[in-house]
């Protein structure tokens, strides 16, 4: 036994040493590349790993760490990212970083009044250097020297002529055939030759052309000067803006502090619609979870009953809604609920001679949505309850039966409290998921029917997240990601608070279960 422990210990340390070696190697290569952020992450990860493996006190962490790594990378980090975006003006028109915008503007050219085009030949020497000779329309010819052009006389004997009389080589440079030119286009495209203040650049595969630079970035003033008109555009509110308010597109991202939050919290229109949307969101989540849980639990209970025949078969059929892609189910349901043409109204019409204005009347639209969502969710509850029912020791029922408890009493006094322990967190989770279930709302009603007189585009079935979507993506110029992030954070705070309160409730339950 002691020997095996020693071997296990040795293996563990050996593996750790190996991982550490790999980490050091990776760290060196990161350092050489200058990628400091990944380097910091790597160092933190390696230190944590060593601490967890070597320290006795961190023993529980050994169980938690593998899961936590994924949780942090894929859940916590995106939250941090969203917080960061919520402090910026990221939106249509302000997508790029300032560095990208300056680079793009400095790369803009315009054609001078008398633009000249040149045909060209490209040459390369064994060292891979690229040079071009340009032939202007007036017959003058030029040769590139670094990034400048110099007039050159192509009849000079240094230029070797081929059989067709054209230049094929000079010095140690030889001319590129067309196929080579295609392959070297990125390099040719980057050539920025100047001649007497004019830029000469590749315009098409076969031509160079004269250009003038459009913009110049003035580092000290943090401004852009239009070299064509002389107007200076200073950086203001994420755009380079001229004194009379003309903006250069594209704009760039800037930090705006808490402005997005203030926009949301102080906007009178948003405040007016908030309570209505919030109320429906809570009702929608609560009713969905409530009904789907009960439907699921009752079915699990029935299908766990050894006296019911064909349980296997029924269980399989009843999880089918869960196995269907949700969006196709949602679209089918929306069609079935159609007021004029839907099957449900045809059945109701045949039975009662009336039609229900599903999806058009706020009350019925909400009813239909909950009906659909319960359909989508109850199989989950059923499977979970099936599993949780197994955790209840049979002896407890035997004892209760001896005491003369009825089936109903046994269900409420034994099954439910024990079931609750493992299922309650899932119900909270399900509540949170429904709270933010954008897809179903969007596919079935898209938040409609519309509400006349609403200050913002908030329909009768809009939940907070779909309303956010409409505020952020159907307003202004679309894609107000900064604003959307801020609203997401606010929603998160709301739902986290609700859940934390619920959590205290489950904590009481957990302590009760300890006594069992």
């Amino acid at each position, binding site marked *: 036994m002691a020997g095996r422990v020693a071997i296990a210990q040795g293996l563990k340390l050996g593996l750790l040493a190996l991982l550490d070696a790999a980490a050091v190697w990776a760290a060196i290569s990161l350092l050489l590349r200058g990628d400091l952020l990944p380097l910091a992450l790597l160092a933190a990860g390696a230190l944590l790993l060593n601490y967890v493996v070597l320290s006795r006190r961190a023993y529980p962490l050994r169980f938690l760490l593998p899961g936590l790594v994924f949780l942090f990378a894929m859940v916590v980090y995106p939250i941090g990212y969203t917080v960061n975006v919520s402090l910026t003006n990221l939106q249509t028109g302000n997508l790029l970083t300032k560095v990208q915008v300056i680079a793009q503007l400095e790369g803009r050219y315009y054609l001078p009044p008398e633009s000249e085009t040149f045909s060209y030949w490209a040459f390369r020497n064994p060292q891979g250097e690229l040079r071009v000779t340009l032939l202007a329309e007036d017959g003058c010819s030029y040769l590139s020297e670094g990034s400048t052009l110099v007039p050159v006389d192509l009849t000079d004997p240094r230029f070797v002529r081929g059989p067709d009389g054209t230049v094929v080589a000079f010095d140690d440079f030889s001319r590129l055939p067309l196929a080579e030119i295609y392959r070297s*286009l990125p390099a040719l495209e980057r050539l920025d030759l100047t001649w007497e203040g004019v830029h000469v650049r590749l315009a098409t595969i076969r031509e160079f052309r004269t250009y003038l630079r459009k913009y110049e970035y003035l580092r000290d003033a943090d401004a852009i000067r239009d070299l064509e008109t002389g107007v200076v555009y200073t950086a203001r509110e994420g755009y380079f803006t001229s004194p009379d308010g003309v903006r250069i597109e594209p704009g760039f991202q800037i930090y705006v502090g808490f402005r997005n939050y203030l926009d949301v919290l102080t906007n009178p229109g948003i405040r007016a619609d908030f309570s209505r949307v919030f109320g429906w969101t809570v009702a929608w989540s609560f009713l969905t979870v409530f009904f789907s849980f009960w439907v699921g639990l009752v079915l699990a209970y029935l299908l766990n009953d050894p006296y019911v025949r064909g349980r296997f078969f029924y269980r399989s059929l009843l999880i089918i809604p869960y196995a269907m892609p949700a969006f196709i189910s949602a679209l089918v349901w929306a069609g079935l609920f159609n007021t004029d043409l839907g099957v449900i109204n045809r059945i109701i019409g045949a039975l009662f001679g009336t039609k229900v204005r599903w999806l058009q009347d706020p009350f019925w639209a909400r009813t239909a949505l909950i009906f659909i969502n319960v359909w989508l969710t109850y199989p989950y509850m059923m499977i979970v309850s099936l599993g949780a029912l197994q955790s209840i020791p049979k002896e407890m029922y035997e004892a209760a039966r001896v005491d003369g408890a009825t089936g109903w009493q046994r269900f409420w006094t034994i099954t439910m409290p024990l079931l609750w322990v493992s299922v309650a967190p899932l119900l909270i989770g399900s509540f949170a998921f429904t709270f933010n279930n954008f897809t179903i709302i969007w596919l079935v009603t898209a938040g409609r029917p519309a509400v006349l007189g609403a200050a913002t585009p908030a329909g009768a079935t809009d939940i907070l997240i779909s309303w956010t979507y409409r505020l952020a993506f159907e307003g202004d110029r679309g894609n107000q990601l900064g604003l959307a992030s801020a609203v997401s954070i606010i929603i998160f705070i709301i739902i986290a608070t609700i859940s934390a309160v619920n959590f205290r409730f489950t904590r009481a339950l957990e302590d009760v279960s300890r006594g069992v």
Partner: protein
Amino acid sequence: MKKFALWVVLALALGTLVYAQAAKLVIWADDRGAPVLRDVAEKYTQDTGVAVEVVEIAYDQIRGQFITTAPTGQGPDIIVGAHDWVGELAANGLLEPVDFGPKLAEFSAAAVQAFSYGGRNYGVPQNTENIAIIYNKALVPEMPKTWDELLEFAREITDPTKPMYAIVFQNGPDPYHWFPMLSACGGYVFGTDAGGALNPCDVGLANEGALRGAQLFADMIAEGLLPAGVSWDTMRALFFGGNAAMVISGPWLVADTKKAGIDYGIALIPSIRCADGSYGIPKPFIGVRGFMVSAFSQNKVLAFDFLLNYIATTETMLALYELDPRAPAHLPTYEIVKVDPDIAAFGLQGQYGIPMPNIPEMASVWGAWSDAQSLIANGQATPEEALAEAVQKIKAALKCP
């Protein structure tokens, strides 16, 4: 160890350098272009040695993924898309202006104009599309010329229990298919300023002309002549099942109409009698599809060479037309295919069409406008109330005075 690491790093760095050097074009296209583009790409590679990769992506994903990927440098060089994306993409600095050179004369001026934003052209147009009436000849003895005649016909054959409707169009809500009714007597989305540029603060969706069409729409639903909440699938089910005599739809419905075995015709949307007694022809939106080049492409010259010398040819444009039969924006190709009666019939309506506004401010319009349509269809508001509120919301979102 360290030396080894250094070598590895150097090799990696060189690898990326070499990778960046190799000229290669990446094109994102949907299935209405990709198969043809693959053939053209192959030819281009044969001619020039430059590799061209055509990545097939679902149409409604191209724009969003382009916006996310382009700034990272991982995006494509060329995308296929609609002209009304141009405003958003160009305002974000993601598109490279097109210099057509002498090729300009080969393209329909209107289609090129549709792709322009802020005075620059951002796309090589491929084809144009607009909606019109598609009707079932077995159910429509004579195509009504005016909306009054249409109503008469509708009262004759409509029977919701069967169901049977004279006319059906997507309205659940769907302002795109509703717009012809509003525009017939003078409704518009954005007005233009003196220079011809769209003015986002001049919204014409609640003017007298628009209200005329909206009222007609409300009355038809109230009278039971038009089913409400019709989606694309419902519309198809009704039309292909012989439960709708005519639909307002576009060239995209034609192939399936043929497959469903319907003897169809394409006609003008009936004219609407305006306040002054004259008849206004409904003006549909015109959509133009085309090719755009990324501002973050490392191979712009190559991309334009490919587009202007290999795509903008009669051969390629004809192949694209075969795959996706809509009116080509490339004039020499249009001359060849205009004998197709469907193209001609849609083109007839298209003469009256207006390009869908391509400025990013359009994002504020759809939601509010859709809400107005659904309020009207549900009878929750009069057209005046609903459209006035929509215009007010649009202007508020755009911070107009």
